[in-house]
């Protein structure tokens, strides 16, 4: 069969086709697809043979495919027909050209840290980008690094540190990949000063969905650059990236404790507005113990904070906060289980942030290691749902307070992670239809709502209802989300509106005629 004239019908993106069992069922009811149907495998053998002719042999055995059966969320499952480990841009180009010809879906995976099934292949090829993990060039004078797109941020940090350098901003997760992060944003506790990780990209080598290898930046093929950055993998595969870097410095950390979300958020925003710290963010144990962390790269910045800003914060030191908590729960003995939980969490978590091997003379070395190890140890599990809200600064307190009420309704234990993102005016074209809310000026703010599921088993319906309840707040307030793909893509049109989404869909169709690249993620 000639694939060009095949009657193979790819379902209209974002919708579910007619039901083959009961074609008259649900007539007139518009349905949006959330969990993708598995691709039917048509033309797979011909496609695989064409790849072999190009020297690419997809691994089809069960061990290779089963490795990628789910993502970090652990709530969506799907198997590829075959796995290809990315090795270079030319190989990816051949793969995508063949995929266009035979209309085979390609799902690109970096660290696989998605939670809504975005990096799961529901049939077709899973392209494992971690095969491209080399650092190509470090320029300590120009303060840039050129690296392959599949590299984990931590592996990049290992190389940079041998040169006395560090990346600027990356997710607090050691196994996020550079390419995956640039495609979705990437938030760090220095994002209130530096913007998101994607803002640190200076240039990219992209393999387009039709297999062209293109160098792009804000001055070269700018339109492609703008679409690939924060583009959720729709407009190309990031084979290489040039990123800003800096000289490495350890951190001077400070923690302030609140029993009010509102006060902590207001103080966080006050610090951000006044550029009072180099790093800032909020991590909570439910809404009971709210920890504002503030950190500095230099003694001078720390001294300036202590002199001008510290006394304005309404948070307490550790001892003062423990006293307040003791008084609070002494007056509310029926809440003692909650107090016991707080005590247990404190006893487990706090030492992890102060391990002696990462502290020297009061300075924290390798913050990403400290935070990421803690994240996986205390917040990771086989199932994770982390719905989030991103809003302008003005709407943020309301968004968090309403989201907190949803958490209380659905789960006995949860945590919130809140951080600001400095918006760079020159990058406004990058932000369209992304996690950056369209109405945000100066800073956007994001909050992740993560239930502590531990060994408790929740139905997918319960988890989906929880996510919907959080995302409904975003629709109501006119914000955005970090995780709006995969199982949550039904919210994209509600959030951004038909005009914007149709505009992006038209661009996608033009760039990817067979709609094969990460086809079920957004559209």
């Amino acid at each position, binding site marked *: 069969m000639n694939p060009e004239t095949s009657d193979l019908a790819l379902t209209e993106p974002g919708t579910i086709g007619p039901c083959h069992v009961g074609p008259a069922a649900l007539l007139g009811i518009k349905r949006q697809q959330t969990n993708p149907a598995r691709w039917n495998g048509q033309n797979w053998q011909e496609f695989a043979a064409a790849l072999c002719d190009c020297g690419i042999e997809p691994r089809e055995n*069960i*061990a290779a495919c089963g490795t990628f059966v789910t993502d970090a969320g*652990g709530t969506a499952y799907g198997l590829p027909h075959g796995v290809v480990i990315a090795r270079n841009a030319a190989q990816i180009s051949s793969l995508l050209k063949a995929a266009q010809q035979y209309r085979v879906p390609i799902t690109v995976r970096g660290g696989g840290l998605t939670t809504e099934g975005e990096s799961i292949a529901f049939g077709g090829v899973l392209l494992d980008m*971690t095969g491209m993990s080399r650092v190509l060039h470090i320029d300590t004078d120009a303060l840039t690094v050129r690296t392959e797109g599949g590299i984990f941020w931590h592996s990049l940090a290992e190389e940079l540190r*041998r040169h006395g350098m560090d990346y600027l901003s990356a997710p607090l997760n050691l196994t996020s990949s550079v390419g995956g992060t640039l495609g979705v944003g990437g938030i760090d506790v220095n994002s209130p000063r530096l913007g998101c990780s994607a803002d640190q990209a200076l240039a990219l080598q992209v393999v387009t969905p039709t297999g062209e290898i293109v160098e792009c930046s804000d001055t070269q093929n700018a339109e492609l650059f703008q679409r690939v950055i924060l583009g959720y993998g729709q407009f190309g595969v990031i084979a290489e990236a040039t990123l800003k870097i800096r000289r490495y410095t350890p951190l001077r950390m400070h923690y302030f404790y609140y029993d009010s979300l509102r006060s902590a958020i207001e103080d966080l925003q006050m610090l951000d507005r006044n550029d009072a710290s180099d790093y800032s963010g909020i991590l909570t144990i439910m809404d009971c113990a709210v920890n504002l962390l503030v950190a500095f790269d230099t003694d001078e910045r720390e001294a300036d904070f202590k002199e001008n800003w510290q006394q304005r914060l309404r948070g307490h030191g550790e001892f003062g906060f423990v006293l307040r908590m003791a008084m609070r729960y002494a007056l509310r003995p029926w809440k003692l289980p909650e107090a016991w939980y707080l005590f247990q969490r404190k006893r487990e978590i706090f030492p992890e942030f102060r391990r002696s091997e990462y502290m020297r003379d009061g300075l924290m070395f390798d913050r990403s290691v400290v935070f*990421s190890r803690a994240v*996986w140890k205390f917040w990771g599990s*086989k199932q994770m749902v982390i719905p989030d809200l991103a809003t302008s600064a003005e709407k943020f307190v309301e968004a968090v307070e309403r989201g907190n009420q949803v958490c209380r309704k659905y789960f006995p234990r949860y945590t919130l992670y809140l951080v600001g993102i400095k918006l760079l005016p020159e990058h406004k074209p990058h932000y369209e239809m992304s996690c950056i809310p369209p109405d945000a000026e100066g800073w956007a703010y994001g909050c992740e709502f993560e239930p502590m599921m531990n060994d408790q088993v929740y139905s997918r319906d319960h988890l989906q209802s929880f996510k919907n309840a959080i995302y409904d707040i975003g629709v109501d307030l006119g914000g955005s989300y970090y995780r709006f793909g995969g199982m949550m893509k039904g919210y994209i049109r509600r959030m951004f509106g038909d005009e914007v989404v149709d505009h992006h869909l038209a661009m996608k169709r033009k760039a990817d005629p067979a709609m094969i690249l990460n086809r079920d993620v957004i559209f």
Partner: protein
Amino acid sequence: MFGFIEKKPAMRKGYNDCSGCSLCLLVCPAWRQSRDISLTPHGHAKAMQHGISAADVAVSAKNCILCMACEPVCPEQIDIVGMILELRRQSGAPAWLHDLQAKMDERAARPATLPPSSPAMLLPDRALHAHPAILARISSLLGNDIIIPMGDDDGSDISLALESGAVISKQRMERFLESLRQLKKIIVADGLLLRHLRQWLPNVNTIGLGEALSGHADVRRGLRPTDLYVIEPRAYHTDYQRLVKYYDRLRIAHGCAFNLDLQRIAIPATSRSLPQRLGLMAIDNDEQARWVLHRRGISRIVVESMEDKTAIEKVSDVPVVHLAELVDDGHYV
């Protein structure tokens, strides 16, 4: 204030608990060489969660070098080394180890040994046996009360059987352990054997050779701030929580650099798998050793393991010395 409420150490979990965080990839030399997840603990665990058999991952499980770096970084505290050894056991011992069983049977049939004449014993590994002069220095440094096993029963056959997935008979195990039970202290050069001896003999103080030598005052005095100290990974990762602080104190006291990554995991100086280590595969690589040395700015390399010394000497242009060579008849070299 509530220190009396002690938390019990968590039991190690199985592959079914792998959440797929990939932290094990970051420290895995097999992954660093291949960038192939199927060769890593993550790949094994996820594939087994999906229902594949031990035979399906036999080849990749045999490529693991058992540096044990993945265990301390696993947030789920999965018994990864146990998982790899079990996969090897299930897929059967390789044919090229046919003489190992005969050797173990022969040792099991030997008459019982006399009780040890001293409360402390050194169990050298294959690489140390190949360097008798270094072994003699070590013996001298550790003192007269340290004994080395009579004959050749140092457990090297048991270590090889563990590593290759061969069955160890009850008789052989009993013969090996019977004299060790009466000791107060065992110093072990083979990190894999160390890990198991700590489980088999929980009442005996069992430590690695690197820790024993680096705890010696004369050896410590020989360390320089411009040294790169290469920790033997198996012993280090076996007792990571304690030793990460031990070596950090050594760093503070002497200023030398270590082969530790940003997670404070020991980077192995060699990424050779078992077949390669035994010389049964021609493929070898120097890339791992080069990565250990990359942009270190050092004047000398100090190693705990003779195997590391051999690997590093191939790619290094600065002197490589064993810890025991830091003291020479009372003079520092």
